[in-house]
């Protein structure tokens, strides 16, 4: 059956060409999806967000445990790097290869849900029956404006304390045991720090983000989430105060271009006195900046609303999954109380299942720095909200950041800058 030389000459290029074109044009990978009520079976894919490097054993164990419970289901675990995760999701969704169970935050699940690519868990009976296992705040955290239902099983939560450098506070003549708790105190401490260090040490290194406006008490959007409103007087006031801070050296001179990674690096190098973070950062401080770790102070992020910011992670189920019942069963399995608590013990995040945060692990301070952050953060989570509007795209965040920078540079007044940012963001929002 071997091909003759002549035929091979014709066939090989022809097949190569057809294959290349077929790959380029790409067959539609989408499908109608299966019923969620059936027996969980089949092969499903599960995608996490930058968790393989540190928690490989945990997830492999989880998949194995699930296999014991549901022997007819095979789970293929995928993990994507942190950078450009949204792009990867977008490419998968557009190409019809979105994993069956996918790690999402509400701002990522929003466009997917709008495009009909995630299961509405409130609508889907097979999923809705688990609703009571999670805290109402966490379940609501995945309810998307304009879409009604919840589109992801609540998974882990996180909130950030503010780390500060006691040594730098002491050197500036500030009381290291009394860190700033209100915005007034924060701006006051920053002025003192800048003056005392001759401008060499800044208190903060990042410009205000949308979460900062939220914590300051600014109304970010209207009730229907159809228009941004952060240009209201309180927003202008906050930006005006940041402008003063920048002019007086309380903000790092490179604050306008600093990325979160650079900000973290400057805190490690003790060039910046305060930095928002999470319990996750402690190991990094201990390993890479032992000097800083010894003089590390931990406090709550300044807040005018009494409601700290909360980051919500969830597991969405692909609406076009060919094994929806298995996907829902697995998403629930990962997020059920026992597994969430187990994960949170390893990762220094917080479970979203009812009653979890009332257990001693999250209520009793064991005297270690990790224990202090854990208990303080768990306490903050009660009543915390996710300030980031889910309809706010990365492009809109860039618009805000750039207009804030113009105000800090003095190229625009704070009012004009926020008016322009809101106008541009509303224009983008209006485009759908």
């Amino acid at each position: 059956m071997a091909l003759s030389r002549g035929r091979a000459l014709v066939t090989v290029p022809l097949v190569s060409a057809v294959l290349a074109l077929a790959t380029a044009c790409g067959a539609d990978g989408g499908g109608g999806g299966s019923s969620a009520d059936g027996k969980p079976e089949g092969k499903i894919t599960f995608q996490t967000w930058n968790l393989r490097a540190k928690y490989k054993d945990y997830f492999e164990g989880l998949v194995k445990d699930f296999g014991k419970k549901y022997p007819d289901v095979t789970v293929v675990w995928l993990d994507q790097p942190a950078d450009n995760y949204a792009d990867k999701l977008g490419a998968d969704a557009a190409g019809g290869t979105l994993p069956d169970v996918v790690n999402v935050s509400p701002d990522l699940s929003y466009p997917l849900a709008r495009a009909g690519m995630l299961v509405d868990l409130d609508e889907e009976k097979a999923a809705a029956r688990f609703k009571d296992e999670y805290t109402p705040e966490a379940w609501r955290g995945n309810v998307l404006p304009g879409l009604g239902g919840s589109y992801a099983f609540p998974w882990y939560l996180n909130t950030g304390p503010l780390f500060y450098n006691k040594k730098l506070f002491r050197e500036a003549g500030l009381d290291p045991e009394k860190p700033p708790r209100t915005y007034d105190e924060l701006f006051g401490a920053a002025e003192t720090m800048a003056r005392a260090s001759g401008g060499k040490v800044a208190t903060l290194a990042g410009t205000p983000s949308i979460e900062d406006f939220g914590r300051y008490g600014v109304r970010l959007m209207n009730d229907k989430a159809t228009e941004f409103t952060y240009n209201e007087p309180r927003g202008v006031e906050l930006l005006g105060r940041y402008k003063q801070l920048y002019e007086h050296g309380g903000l790092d001179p490179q604050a306008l271009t600093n990325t979160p990674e650079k900000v973290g690096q400057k805190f490690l190098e003790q060039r910046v006195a305060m930095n928002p973070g999470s319990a996750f950062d402690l190991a990094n401080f201990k390993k890479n900046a032992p000097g800083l770790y010894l003089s590390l102070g931990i406090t709550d992020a300044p807040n005018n609303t009494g409601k700290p910011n909360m980051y919500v992670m969830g597991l969405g189920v692909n609406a076009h999954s060919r094994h929806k019942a298995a996907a829902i069963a697995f998403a629930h399995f990962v997020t059920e109380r026992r597994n969430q608590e187990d994960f949170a013990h390893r990762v220094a995040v917080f479970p979203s299942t009812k009653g979890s945060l009332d257990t001693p692990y999250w209520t009793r301070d064991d005297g270690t720095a990790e224990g202090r952050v854990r208990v303080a953060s768990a306490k903050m989570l009660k009543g915390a909200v996710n300030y980031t509007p889910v309809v706010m795209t990365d492009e809109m965040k860039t618009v805000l950041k750039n207009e804030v920078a113009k105000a800090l540079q003095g190229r625009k007044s704070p009012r004009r800058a926020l008016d322009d940012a809101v106008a541009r963001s509303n224009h983008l929002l209006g485009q759908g």
Partner: protein
Amino acid sequence: MAGRVRTHRAVSPWLFLLPGLAVVTAFSLCPFLTTAHHAFTDARTLTPGGWVGLRNFREMLHDEQFWVALRNSGLYVLVVVPFTVLLPLLLALLVERRLPGVAFFRSAFYTPVVASVVVVALVWGWMLDDRGLVNGLLRVLGAGPVHFLGDQWLLLLSAMALTVWKGLGYYMVIYLAALAGVPRELHEAAAVDGAGALRRFVSVTVPAVRSTMVLVGALSSVAAFKVFSEVYLLAGPTGGPAGADTTLVMLVQRTGTGLNGRVGYASALSLVVFGVALVLMLLVLRANRRGREGG
């Protein structure tokens, strides 16, 4: 038999070309045509969108960021291209001679070309930081600190310097190949006629490598206009303070990617990038033709 041979002769070349053509069609032509189509739609990452005619191009005219990006990309060409045309030629003249140890310098000059742009940009970022090596040296001299990474113009100039430095070795190799073809007799004759080194460079070397200079000019102008990595890595994803260092390709990336990417608008921007790059190429080639005709 003769007919079969004729058919074979006519068909065979195309069959051999077919895989290559298929790859070009699949990975260049198809995406280009898709981009051209999307430019006239309001497509998003997850939705195909509908036909909107010239709306994306009209929006571009009113988009402040577009004009900033166009200015920056244009400036990049104006500043970077003269350096990438002349400096590598001078370097090539230096390392062309067969001197002991010259191979080391050739390799050293070429090293940045093979180094990852991300790594190189990170190193430059550290050096140009307020407390980096460059500001350290300036402090020793009693100057500074200079906010290379905080000022829009210094940031752009730093990125340009990085582009020039990284490209020197690549273009140097092209010039080395061209210089190898310049007859030694021409230099000897000019020297006998009393021409000095500068005169020989202007009257012998430059005319001899003229077409290579045009090639380098064309390649580097298109590359400079499409700059992304250097500015993105030094100025950050927002494109410097208040986005003032954003280039056109950065704007394409910012608007077109992510789950909410405005694919239609980004495609329209891409067409503009393509159009301008094409015009740049044609201008360089035309200048070359005129130069030749002028003798």
